[in-house]
């Protein structure tokens, strides 16, 4: 069974459906309710945009990247998450053919980059880490310059509009704020209408507002069906944007999967907070049923739950015991906890 993302031809909504290789399904768009047939690819391998196999990079005694393997599906946002110095940029630059690997292979859109990188240049685009474009080009000229380098060119007007750069298009690049520069950088990634967009730490150094703007841009890329390879050391960025997350630590991938999968597998469980509970027996009743519950004072109880569907079980237990409460609040486990579980350190503490 394969899960794939499909873009609605009517409203552009992206929805995920599951099916077997070669299987045809009649599906309905959850947004505009348009019905139509979709077909899953025969060859499952063809659905991967990036395939990395046993990648290794050694500098003298330092192993920067240590036997990394993963696959990125077409149309997904893949977050490569890890502290500074973990090997993220080295890995992404090997994938982009900017660096030579010591060992291992990379396949982009079915082409081995050792021999076929030139063939895929037209179909990929990158935003390098800490990228600054030509200082004395205007925003429009910057886009036009990079656009001219490709055979296949996207509509510059459309990109300027989509990136909300109309009011800045005549400004010189060097006069732009950090957030705008990053937005232009991401816009540059679209000038050749690529299939894969690599964004290396696109929000580092930005203020929260500018970061949100870039996130919106990345969300739009996903909506357009682009495969986005996002390198980041911000947990919330990966949580907000990624379909699939790989966590790298000290040159190795220590966990990989969807956000739900990672939290379920490595998280310390979610906490269900029950407020306005006046019954003195509530904690004892829950503990009797095997729950990890404790009082937080002022009629508030905290119950650790492992799976989200057990929230109903907890509430059902209380209802059967005739315990009243006013409200509930669920605090989910997050990637920070996942990282803590996996490495024994918080992400920022783990920076090399």
């Amino acid at each position, binding site marked *: 069974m394969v899960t794939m993302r499909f873009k609605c031809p009517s409203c552009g909504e992206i929805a995920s459906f599951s099916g077997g290789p070669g299987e045809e399904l009649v599906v309905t768009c959850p947004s505009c309710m348009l019905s139509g047939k979709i077909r899953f690819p025969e060859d499952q391998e063809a659905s991967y945009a990036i395939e990395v196999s046993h990648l290794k990079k050694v*500098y003298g005694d330092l192993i920067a990247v240590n036997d990394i393997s993963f696959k990125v599906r077409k149309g997904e946002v893949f977050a490569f998450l890890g502290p500074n110095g973990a090997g993220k940029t080295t890995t992404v*630059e090997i994938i*982009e*053919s*900017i*660096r*030579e690997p010591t060992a291992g292979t990379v396949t982009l859109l079915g082409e081995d980059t050792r021999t076929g990188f*030139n063939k895929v*240049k*037209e179909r*990929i*685009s*990158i*935003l*390098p*880490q*800490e*990228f*600054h*474009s*030509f*200082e*004395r*080009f205007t925003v429009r*000229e910057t886009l036009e*310059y*990079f656009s*001219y*380098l*490709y*055979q296949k060119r996207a509509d510059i007007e459309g990109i300027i509009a989509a990136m909300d750069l109309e009011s800045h298009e005549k400004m*010189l690049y060097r006069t732009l704020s950090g957030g705008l520069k990053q937005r232009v950088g991401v816009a*540059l990634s679209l000038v*050749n209408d690529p299939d894969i967009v690599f964004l290396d730490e696109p929000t580092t150094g930005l203020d929260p507002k500018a970061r949100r703007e870039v996130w919106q841009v990345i969300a739009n890329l996903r909506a357009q069906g682009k495969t986005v390879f996002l390198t980041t050391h911000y947990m919330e960025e990966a949580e907000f944007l990624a379909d699939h997350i790989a966590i790298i630590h000290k040159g190795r991938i220590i966990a990989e999967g969807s956000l739900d999968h990672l939290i379920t597998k490595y998280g310390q469980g979610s906490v269900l907070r029950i407020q306005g509970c006046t019954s003195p027996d509530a904690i004892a009743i829950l503990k009797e049923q095997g729950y990890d519950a404790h009082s937080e004072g002022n009629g508030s109880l905290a119950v650790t739950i492992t799976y989200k569907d057990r929230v109903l079980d907890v509430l059902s237990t209380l209802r059967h015991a005739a315990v009243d409460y006013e409200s509930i609040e669920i605090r989910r486990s997050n990637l920070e906890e996942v990282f803590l579980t996996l490495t024994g350190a918080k992400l920022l503490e783990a920076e090399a």
Partner: protein
Amino acid sequence: MNLRIVGMDVFFSIKSWWRSRGTVFWSLLFPIMLILIFGAIFSGTGSSSYSVYVQDHDHSTMSSQLLDIMNKTGVLKITMVNDSENATAYIKANNIGCFLVIPEGYERSINQSFINPASRVNLTFYYDPTETGTTEVVRSVISNILQTMNMRLSQGRSIVGLSAQSTITEKFNYIDFFVPGMIGFTIMQQAIYGSIERNTKYRKDGILRKLLTTPITRSEWILAKMLFMLFLSFLTTTIAILVGVLVWGLKVNITPLMILTVVSSSFLFSGIGMIIGRFVKEEETADMAAGAISFPMMFLAGTFFPLALMPAFLQTVAQVLPLYYVNEALRNSMIYMNQTLAITNAAIVLVFAVVFFVAGVVLTKWRED
């Protein structure tokens, strides 16, 4: 090779360059200012070196007396040259600024003048017109000595005259020397610093990494940048010549060798810039390295002052500096019209250009280690 991409890159480079007031100033206005300032300073003043070479064909008492008087002025430092030497060949071979020839029959002519008032004798003074200050002083001192002699011998009748002859066929002045040097120097500055910006700043800013993943090839990029560099070099050359002609009455010959030298030097100094950019990764350090290379060249390669004014060991140092040959090739191909020297120096510049540019291209990498 995609020429559309190359052309587009050149167009954007020119546009970007024009927007940088600082770059335009250093590329165009700074050379113009130097031409105007140095032209004004050196158009009428001298220098502090008063060395003169003397060839005495007469070997007489009177010629010895003349040399003695010249020595006693304390202003002239006399070096005797064997009279078997061919004067013009000797001057050329030894790069001599002032050379006095006392002809055979000097004493006899003076003696005869007491019997025959029409009898007279001329000393020949060879001078390098590019060393205006020095040669004017020496010539003036010798003329004064001869005038005093004439006054004592005949109450002012001209018995001993001084015939001045340029070591170069035309009459040149300092600005003729300076403008080609300024062109060479400006090309050097633009090419070295331009290359460094492309190889360090663009690397730091991620532009080279970005370009590496686009369809533009390294050859197309380098070709585009060299075409832009040639545009700047010819623009600088044209403006320097125009200012020289309009303000200082410079007489210039546009020759194929001059054009070849401008092209070769653009490649030569771009190559040097690429090599610096390859080994010095930090932008600021690279700028300092470029300064460390270009500034000594500027002063030691005969850009502003003739090499003859410098100590002998510095003159030897100059002979290994590429800018020296660029300056000499430009001077001889566009001003002095000495074909032999023009060809020799242009050929040396060409060889330097091939070596440094090829090394630069080979060493320049877009990929990271």
